[in-house]
């Protein structure tokens, strides 16, 4: 092939002299992008996921245009819409041209703004957890894999130890503890403390899987000869990690993150559902489920459940499909 290759090389200057741009190679990242764009499922999922993020991002703007906010207690503002028990008088929770998704039985919050603000809260927390997990995973995973030896042993045992924790139970049990670290139990807990506690607790038990994968990747990369070539040139360990290792762990990192984020969304929703996450009146995706399952809402307005339910299913499914497509685009040899 080399003979052929050389022949091609010597033949190339003629025709290529005119179009120099044509000789710019395509990076593995560009190749991935080209493959991804050909995957229809992936592209649709990406649009859906993007749509959710856009809603979360633009929630204040949307509610401004819509003319309502999730904190207004319509049971007080518009008592004509509710009966004596606080249930909207119109069917399906009072869905109308004015209240697109109806009103919440009880306090009478507007469901539409509550949902978009809930998506905003949930996604903000999940993205923060994902970022924290990715940073931790890179730091500890790459350190363990690249440095090896005692560092690897120590980090490996820490990962084993944390993986042995029953995660859900730990979340529920530790949330009040973490919250009490910031505020005295007698005072009212500010929302940002709850958000911070949710991020910390999920991060604490969330990074190990990614850390292990990145450790394995770094371990495999360390043995590659291009690392030795960099060492022979006198590159510092920091430069080797930055320029040689990090660009090569982008693939598993991106694939894993797209699987991790929906998990964090559902975990956060679970915690809020159980009452240890975000609480009223702060809107939250998961907390809407717990609201939907209260006796008052359940018996009088079953439609309420569908708004957070369907939107979350669509989001999680789309995100997981997106994760699959990203993986396929990076690793086209994996047959499905």
């Amino acid at each position: 092939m080399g003979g052929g290759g050389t022949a091609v090389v010597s033949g190339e200057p003629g025709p290529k002299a005119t179009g120099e741009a044509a000789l710019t190679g395509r990076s593995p990242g560009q190749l991935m992008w080209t493959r991804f764009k050909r995957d229809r499922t992936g592209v649709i999922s990406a649009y859906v996921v993007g749509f959710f993020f856009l809603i979360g991002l633009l929630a204040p703007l949307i509610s401004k245009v819509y003319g309502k906010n999730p904190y207004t207690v319509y049971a007080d503002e518009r008592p004509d819409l509710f009966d004596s028990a606080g249930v909207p008088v119109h069917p399906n929770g009072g869905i109308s041209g004015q209240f697109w998704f109806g009103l919440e039985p009880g306090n009478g919050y507007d469901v539409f703004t509550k949902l978009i603000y809930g998506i905003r809260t949930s996604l903000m927390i999940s993205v923060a957890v994902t970022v924290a997990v990715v940073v931790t995973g890179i730091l500890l995973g790459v350190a363990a894999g690249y440095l090896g030896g005692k560092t690897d042993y120590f980090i490996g045992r820490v990962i084993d130890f944390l993986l042995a924790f029953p995660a859900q139970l730990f979340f529920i049990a530790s949330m009040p503890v973490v919250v009490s670290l910031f505020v005295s139990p007698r005072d009212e807990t500010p929302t940002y403390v709850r958000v911070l506690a949710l991020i910390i607790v999920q991060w604490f038990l969330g990074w190990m899987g990614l850390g292990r994968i990145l450790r394995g990747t770094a371990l495999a990369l360390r043995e590659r000869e291009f690392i030795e070539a960099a060492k022979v040139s006198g590159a510092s360990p920091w430069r080797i990690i930055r320029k040689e290792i990090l660009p090569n762990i982008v693939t598993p990192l991106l694939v894993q993150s797209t699987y991790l984020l929906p998990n964090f969304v559902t975990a956060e929703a679970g915690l809020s559902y159980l009452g240890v996450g975000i609480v009223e009146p702060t809107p939250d995706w998961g907390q809407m489920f717990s609201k939907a399952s209260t006796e008052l809402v359940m018996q009088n307005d079953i439609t309420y459940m569908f708004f957070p339910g369907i939107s979350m299913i669509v989001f999680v499914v789309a995100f997981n499909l997106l994760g699959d497509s990203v993986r396929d685009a990076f690793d086209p040899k994996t047959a499905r």
Partner: protein
Amino acid sequence: MKEDLVLPAQRAQGPGTDGERLLEVTGLTKHFPVKGGFPIRRTIGQVQAVDGIDLTVHTGESFGLVGESGCGKSTTGRLITRLMEPTAGTVAYRGRDISHASRKQLAPIRSEIQMIFQDPYSSLNPRQTVGTIISGPMEINGINPQGGREKRVRELLEIVGLNPEHYNRFPHEFSGGQRQRIGVARALALEPKLIVADEPVSALDVSIQAQVVNLLQQVQNDLGIAFLFIAHDLAIVRHFSQRVAVMYLGKIIEVGDRDSIYTRPRHPYTHALLSAVPEVNLTDEDTGGRERIRLAGDVPSPISPPSGCRFRTRCWKAQDKCAAEEPPLVRISGNHEGHLTACHFPEEPTTEGREEDIVLDPALAALEEAASDEGQGQP
């Protein structure tokens, strides 16, 4: 080409002044600990990968290091480029001991010792363009050639026979031979004085091997770079190197100039190694002109190498002395200047065929006996 090569060989062979000695390795040793045991892991043995070797590479010379797989050739190369730290012994570059130098202490000479790697598919970072790969060493060492690094990289690409327009391409767009050329260009980027080539062609297709070897030879002649050429292909080493050392189980057992090693070998292992090279001239009337030696068994474990001479377990001339006493690497009588052999009972300095083939492998011997009996049964 032959005439060109003989000249530097002779210069290197001459009683070199100290200025000519580029690299001097003495008593170089690398032992890898073997961990085991339960419940407490501890060192239960040492893999004696390289065990006290001496060699000298002169300026502009090509020094070949041959031996079978696992004899410590590559470890030696990695010790010299200080990818590993030696257990004992010294590596001196231009008289400066670098055997335990830190990365910072090594910095000034990093640009002078470069390496070409074995596997062209793993020696180039798949996420970097060719330009980034080749200019990387210049960037690390803060070298700013005239006209900029990009211009220099394009020159280097031209030197190694690639199109300078390949600057912005990625390694996956090249064939194995082209990738190895990129590796050569990267090694040349720092204008080194010594290149350690660790089996630079053994991963390549045979038809490409010649191209890459010729490229290396051209580079060596044009730029006067000294090479430590590590290979297990004897023919390529013969073509490329003026002096050759033969390694067996972590030790150099014979070293000398090319002609001494290839036509006047003294160590039995060198004889065996040379006789294992396949003969191309089947039509030649004197195919029986070469000696024929077939060893039996495997190389002993480097964890517990044999006492005395390490080759004695497979040697047909081994005697009690070989187990008791390790033969020193010396110039034995009948050797040319600079031809050193570590053997108590050296062979005749010839590769001519002997009266009887040495076939130590019992299975092969039985096969051949059966074949010759058959031949005699039907005259």
